[in-house]
């Protein structure tokens, strides 16, 4: 939708409403809300809390509103995958409310989300009260002010891989292994979501549970799997002469393109040759990758 540059009514200065913190509620604790939720899937609802500073006097003064005009501060969300929009908690107030901090919360149903989640706080005009000024909004719900968006990438690397939980004793995989990534490093034109699969051994119930029932307490296992997948994929493509010759030959959606993007993301500024050199020192490569991928970072 076309963004409105100027509104046909008075609006407050942008610093009248300021987000101080975005937080995520996980069970009984809150944690800062970053820009990605790697363990998320559609079965996981997201509990958001925004701490907002509101300068009530300034808003009424800027908009020439009488003290009985009703305003609403609301937390809004939209998701790029489903395109759906929604709202969380709202606080209605008049001039009588004191300036200061207020908290807005939202419990967002994971089934309504895919790809990314963008959060906003907006200040809305609801009713004029006794305000007579000509430059007040005519419509309830008119936007007086909006904070910068907070965008979160959902569905981390782990969730994007097709995963199957099977009994390894019925396969040719090592029977005691925890997981097995089925892919062909010699054919990097394979579609990432078609031919690449992560098999998890059902004989290891802790691992199977960690990937099929996303819970905070099993995050460590998922992170270990995530690191191993990244190492396996990066090492694999760096052994492929075609990839080394021209990594840009692979079209979007292929395994070659996905690992190329991964290398460029995690090894920004490195040449392919220098990354290849690094893999010859496995202990250093592993530690560096842990740092770049922020493995275990959200447990800190």
């Amino acid at each position, binding site marked *: 939708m076309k963004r409105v540059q100027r509104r046909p009514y008075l609006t407050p200065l942008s610093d009248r409403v300021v987000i101080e913190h975005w937080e995520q509620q996980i069970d009984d604790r809150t944690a800062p809300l970053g820009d990605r939720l790697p363990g998320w899937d*559609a079965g996981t609802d997201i509990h958001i809390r925004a701490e907002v500073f509101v300068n009530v006097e300034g808003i009424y003064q800027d908009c020439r509103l009488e003290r009985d005009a009703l305003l609403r501060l609301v937390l809004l969300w939209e998701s790029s995958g489903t395109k759906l929009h929604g709202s969380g908690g709202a606080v209605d107030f008049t001039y009588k409310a004191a300036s200061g901090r207020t908290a807005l919360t939202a419990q967002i149903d994971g089934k309504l989300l895919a790809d990314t989640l963008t959060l906003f706080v907006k200040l809305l005009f609801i009713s004029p009260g006794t305000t007579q000024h000509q430059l007040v909004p005519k419509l309830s719900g008119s936007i007086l002010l909006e904070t910068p968006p907070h965008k979160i990438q959902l569905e981390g690397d782990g969730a994007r891989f097709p995963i199957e939980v099977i009994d390894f004793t019925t396969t040719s995989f090592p029977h005691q292994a925890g997981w097995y990534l089925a892919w062909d490093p010699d054919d990097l034109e394979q579609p990432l979501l078609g031919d690449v699969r992560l098999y998890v051994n059902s004989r290891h119930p802790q691992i199977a549970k960690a990937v099929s029932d996303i819970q905070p307490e099993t995050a460590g296992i998922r992170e270990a799997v995530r690191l191993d997948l990244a190492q396996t994929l990066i090492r694999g493509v760096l052994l492929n002469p075609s990839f080394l010759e021209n990594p840009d030959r692979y079209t979007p959606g292929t395994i070659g393109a996905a690992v190329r993007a991964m290398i460029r993301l995690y090894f920004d500024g490195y040449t392919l040759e220098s990354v290849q050199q690094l893999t010859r020192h496995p202990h250093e490569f592993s530690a560096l990758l842990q740092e770049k991928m922020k493995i275990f970072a959200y447990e800190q």
Partner: protein
Amino acid sequence: MSSELYYLYPRLPQHIAQQTAEALVTRTADELKDLWETSHGALTYAPTGGNRITDEQLKLLRAAVLTIAHRYGYPDTSGKNAARTFDVECAIVLHETMRLHPSEASHNEVWSFLGCILLPDVVRWRFDDSTDTIRFVGRERGMRRHAFGRLWWRAYLACNPRWKEPYILLHRLNEDDLVQVTERSSIAVRPALFRSLCVSFAMAAKSHAELPRRDLMREASKRMYRLLSLTVVEALNEGELRTLTDDVFAKTAEALMNAVETPS
């Protein structure tokens, strides 16, 4: 997360769906009626977020859709009225039985599986006058022009379980009306607005029967679209929203009547 059971559907990769659809549009429904499957070598599933639907459940879904199609003449050519009634009934059946959530429904590959693998004959029967592969292959979440995706999304947006007849809007609005409102993407991404706008439209179309429905919905949708750049309708309660959408139609009807009375 609600304890309701949701299914994860097979996903057919887009490049395979496109190739498959190009072959399907050259065949008739009758030729395709035995060429459906519940599986395909290239299918994938979302790793988490529900339970994988079984072959048996896919067969039941196919049977439910096919029952409706038979009621309207399948595999013989469908008339325009039959197609419209089929769409309404099929939309309700898909929404009630698929146990699909919007997160899963937003993946084009799910709709490509339904169109190309599970129900290709029904797609061909419903759109026998078209060779456009988009009826088989999911695009834009399946919402636009896919034989089944557009029906599921319409039912999802129109359904209000608190109403005595939850899907009444699908019966009250015709195909043109629904296309107007679902193809305005800023309206069809806000279910409460979608429903409120449709209710206000149904009332306005009745009280202004002299005005062409198409004009009334098209002009009101444009007016609503402009309002969305200034207002946050998600933050309005049901009553406030209804006041807004009623007002949009009142002003639209007034403008249309003025235009009729003062020809240029």
